[in-house]
């Protein structure tokens, strides 16, 4: 069942002060400290005797290390230690596993494989001296020819990047495919219309405002390691450190304090963290390492970098029959993709989009290049950004060829509500959906017909206006443990709830906010289930010593997985509370009725006990029903039955100055459906942020390289992020189609807008350029690239 609601009026909303016990608009519990500057971010942590670590990085993309002379750096009066790859190799710590079971150098020992790769580190008494000492390290390199062009990575004469891997004779990482190749071929052979396009999703970077970093503190006697770290996945990090460094897991405590944005950038373990741990272990003092912005942009988890050859088959009337693609994936120098093991291409398999197809097939080749590692980051839901971008772009190319309105073409092909649960031709089971109302709502909010009329008039006058549509289906909440694990760790999440004697509560999560508002939404989930006001519920997260195991926050999985765990653990506690209540009210359990916050005797509401009363009884001196233990708490581990499939319809309106090719985003309409909503205010915020991301990626962002492998986007001067002047006042609305398998029907929302918005923006720009006969143009659509496209000189960005 779907309910639809128009966009809220923000002014009215902001004025009223609601305090829902459960779901609804609720001001955030984290804000009182953050607006006072009293957050606690990693770089805010100061420990007694703490030292500072700085990393020396390679100036070259591919070079053999001939020698490293650290003597001058060691002689610096404030330097405590200088460590090279050779030093780490002695401890067996020069290499570490990536989240894709590849290996990555912590510090280069043999050669450097991407520009800015870690070569050595300095530990000094203060951060200024650590930075100074880097200048005193002398490294001699022997330059090697780099592999930069992904299309040439598999050439027979291409230099071998990973000669550290035994028997490696090329730069191939993996081949992968999904769907039915023969069936798809058959559909294409008979199709009336086939449209092909090479569609590129360039390399981008999440660039959270807070860079990555940590403070490592190894206690000399006990061997206890405490690591404060910008980690989206503290439990997974702890286990990996145990596996890599051989540290006993019970002696490792990972604490992720306040995090200044993550967007996937803070999922992997970076060499800097390992360096800081080693330094603290060796020196016996706490060691802090914080990346500078350049380090963040040039060395940590990038995203995308897919060259996608897409094809779509359809009838002349616009019935889409099949989609297929061949993808060339640039993974950089180490395969650092953070995706479930069985999904080397992430969830790219949902490239069939929101359409009812007869067949689909994709195959992919992933290669090494002399670039920074990564690939899954930046709010991508494990490569769904790429998949949705490809399908939404190729559908627009089809509309172009058929001379059909792109919204009409989509409406004609959307999966129908009665088809859910819908199994796609690549095997994904979409749990629920009601697509057409979302699409219609977006079109109504936009005034779609009127916009098209305006566009036609403008075209008569030579003005360039574009309307871009995208409809996306996300797949979030990884995931069922039978299918999904990272480094062998199942993707289930624990949750623990304790109700204190006075009826206040503490809930402990395995996931970790980086700004999503877990302290608020998880308190609301517990409140909804048990009727304790959210302000009486403390949410504990990000500390492995004080929370149950789970895989962390990314891929929009907190609400679908951990949110479900929070609801179910609360129900477990409520079940016990019901037994206690039956004793208190002297009736059988079956005779009790739950209304939020209390149990009452059926038919006699005057006889009731509140959850607070029950909590006191649970811990009190009075009798409990026979066989029941005291206390009121529970712990569970939730294994999701399926992913959840949020969806949305986006419309972007742009104007282009024909003389300068400058694009202005005039309006952006976003209708999202993430099932049951916990806190509409927070959901709206999640959507807004992702929409801005889309404008960034579509119009200005790219991690580019020159032919020598020099990164050309090493600062925020070169890697552009939209400001308040490039972003419009977002117009949002939503429909609600609950997930049938989630305990309260919610789906993830964190990445929907990042997934759905880039195609809407690009489709709008390409639509504006229709008078020039343009069918496709690749991101980033900077003024220069738009102008070159208008001249018929469009070139792929890679």
């Amino acid at each position, binding site marked *: 069942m779907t309910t639809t609601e128009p966009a809220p009026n923000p002014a009215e909303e902001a004025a009223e002060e609601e305090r829902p016990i459960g779901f609804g608009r609720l001001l955030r519990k984290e804000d009182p400290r953050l607006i006072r500057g009293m957050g606690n971010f990693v770089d805010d942590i100061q420990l007694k005797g703490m030292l500072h670590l700085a990393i020396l990085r390679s100036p070259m993309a591919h070079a053999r290390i001939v020698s490293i002379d650290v003597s001058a750096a060691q002689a610096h009066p404030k330097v405590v230690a200088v460590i090279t790859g050779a030093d780490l190799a002695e401890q067996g710590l020069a290499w570490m596993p990536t989240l894709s079971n590849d290996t990555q150098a912590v510090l280069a020992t043999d050669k450097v494989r991407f520009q800015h790769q870690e070569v050595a580190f300095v530990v000094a008494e203060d*951060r200024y001296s650590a930075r100074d000492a880097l200048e005193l390290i002398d490294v001699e390199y022997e330059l090697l020819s780099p592999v930069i062009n992904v299309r040439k990575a598999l050439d027979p004469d291409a230099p071998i990047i990973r000669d550290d891997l035994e028997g490696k004779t090329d730069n191939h990482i993996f081949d992968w495919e999904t769907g039915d190749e023969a069936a798809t071929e058959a559909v294409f052979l008979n199709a009336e219309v086939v449209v092909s396009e090479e569609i590129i999703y360039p390399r981008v970077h999440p660039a959270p405002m807070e860079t990555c970093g940590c403070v490592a503190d190894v206690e000399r006697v006990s061997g206890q390691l405490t690591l404060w770290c910008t980690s989206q996945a503290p439990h997974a990090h702890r286990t990996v450190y145990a596996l890599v460094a051989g540290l006993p897991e019970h002696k490792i405590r990972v604490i992720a304090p306040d995090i200044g944005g993550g967007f996937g950038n803070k999922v992997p373990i970076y060499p800097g963290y390992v360096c800081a741990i080693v330094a603290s272990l060796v020196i016996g003092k706490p060691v802090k390492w914080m990346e500078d912005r350049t380090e963040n942009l040039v060395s940590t988890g990038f995203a995308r970098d897919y060259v996608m050859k897409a094809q779509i088959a359809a009838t002349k009337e616009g019935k889409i029959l099949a989609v297929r693609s061949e993808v060339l994936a640039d993974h950089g120098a180490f395969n650092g993709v953070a995706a479930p093991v069985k999904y080397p291409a992430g969830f790219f398999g949902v490239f069939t989009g929101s359409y009812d197809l007869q067949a689909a097939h994709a195959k992919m080749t992933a290669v090494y290049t002399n670039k920074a590692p990564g690939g899954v980051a930046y709010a991508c839901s494990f490569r769904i950004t790429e998949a949705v971008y490809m399908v939404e772009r190729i559908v627009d190319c089809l509309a172009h060829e058929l001379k059909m309105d792109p919204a009409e073409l989509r409406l004609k092909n959307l999966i129908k509500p009665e088809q859910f649960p819908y199994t796609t031709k690549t095997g994904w089971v979409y749990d629920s959906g009601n697509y057409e109302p979302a699409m219609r709502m977006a079109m109504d909010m936009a005034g779609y017909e009127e916009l098209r009329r305006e566009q036609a008039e403008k075209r008569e006058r030579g003005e360039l206006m574009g309307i871009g549509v995208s409809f996306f289906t996300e797949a979030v909440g990884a995931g069922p443990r039978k299918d999904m694990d990272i480094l062998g760790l199942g993707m289930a999440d624990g949750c623990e709830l304790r109700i204190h004697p006075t009826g206040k509560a503490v809930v402990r999560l395995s996931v970790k906010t980086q700004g999503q508002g877990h302290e608020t939404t998880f308190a609301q989930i517990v409140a909804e289930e048990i009727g304790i006001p959210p302000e009486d519920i403390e949410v504990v997260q990000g500390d492995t010593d004080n929370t149950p195991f789970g895989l962390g926050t990314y891929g929009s999985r907190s609400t679908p997985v951990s949110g479900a765990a929070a609801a179910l653990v609360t129900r477990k506690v409520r079940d016990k509370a019901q037994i206690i209540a039956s004793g208190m009210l002297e009736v059988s359990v079956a005779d009790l009725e739950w209304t939020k916050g209390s149990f009452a005797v059926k038919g006699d509401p005057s006889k009731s006990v509140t959850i607070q009363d029950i909590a006191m009884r649970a811990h009190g001196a009075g009798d409990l029903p026979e066989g029941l233990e005291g206390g009121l708490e529970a712990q569970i581990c939730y294994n999701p039955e399926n992913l959840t499939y949020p969806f949305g319809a986006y419309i972007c309106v742009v104007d282009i100055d024909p003389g*300068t090719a400058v694009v202005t985003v005039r309006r952006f309409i976003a209708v999202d459906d993430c099932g049951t909503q916990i806190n509409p205010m927070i959901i709206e915020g999640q959507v807004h942020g992702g929409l801005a991301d889309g404008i960034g990626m579509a119009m200005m962002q790219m991690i580019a390289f020159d032919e020598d492998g020099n990164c050309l986007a090493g600062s925020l001067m070169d890697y552009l992020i939209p400001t308040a*002047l490039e972003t419009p006042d977002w117009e949002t609305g939503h429909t609600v189609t609950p997930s049938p398998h989630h305990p309260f029907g919610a789906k993830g929302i964190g990445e929907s807008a990042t997934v759905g918005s880039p195609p809407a923006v690009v489709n709008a720009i390409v639509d504006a350029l229709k008078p020039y006969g343009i069918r496709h143009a690749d991101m980033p659509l900077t003024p220069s690239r738009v*102008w*070159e496209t208008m001249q018929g*000189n469009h070139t792929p960005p890679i």
Partner: protein
Amino acid sequence: MQVPAPFEYERATSVEHAIALRERLGEEARFVAGGHSLLPMMKLRLANPEYLIDINDLSELFYISEDANEVRIGAMTRHRDLLDSELLAQHFPIFRDAEKVIADPVVRNRGTLGGSLCQADPSEDLSAVCAALDAACVIKSTSGERVVSMADFHVGPYETAVGDAEMLTEIRIPLRPNSGSAYEKVERRAGDWAIVSSGAAVWMDGDVIANGRVGLAAVGPNTTSIETVSAALSGAAPSEELYQTVGDIAAANCSPQTDQRGTAAYKRHLAMELTRRSLRRAVARATGQEA
């Protein structure tokens, strides 16, 4: 985050003091005004001066004043004040056009006219503004002061006529009757350096342009004032054809490079297009058709 290498810091208390310090400390010393370009370069260790002379206390260099013949602007006048100045907006609206799109509002609170000109970044906007306005630069030293044109001020990218023991103290802009000026800039995003900018200033004599100048930014050397532009404008009646001709001259006289901001062809096109626009608007202002 990145941090600068060590240096010594002196705070100048007067122009004379600043120049004396500079003379004593030599080429390893640099003035710091707003610092929002210099300090990032020092953090990235692209600039490593041994001495920084802080000139932010030199209140005698914060002014915008006019007399019968010219407007004088102190070198320490901040971008924000150039933007807000009604006097400049009245005489030289090109300043407000440009200042709206120079860096961002917070940087504009610190950055200064003198700092921008002395940085001499090829993409910097105020050099093109000042060149279009036929401004002169006052450079002081212990032996006195000299006045140079913008063309002579700019020696090359990041290089100016200001010597090691000298200081840029003032910009003088001639006041001419029936004048108009305008600035056009295209950037990839607010706050970014220009892909290309074009500033134009014209002085009318009845229905014809008595004289006019165009200054470009970010399209290579020697484009802050193009002689052939002035020749084409002198004595010409304003028309779309004229703007096109001058735009074409501007495009032909620049030497843009392809980079992340854009292709050389696009930049050359912008040099033409933005020159047409800035000129059109400058004329409209000179003739009272536009504020």
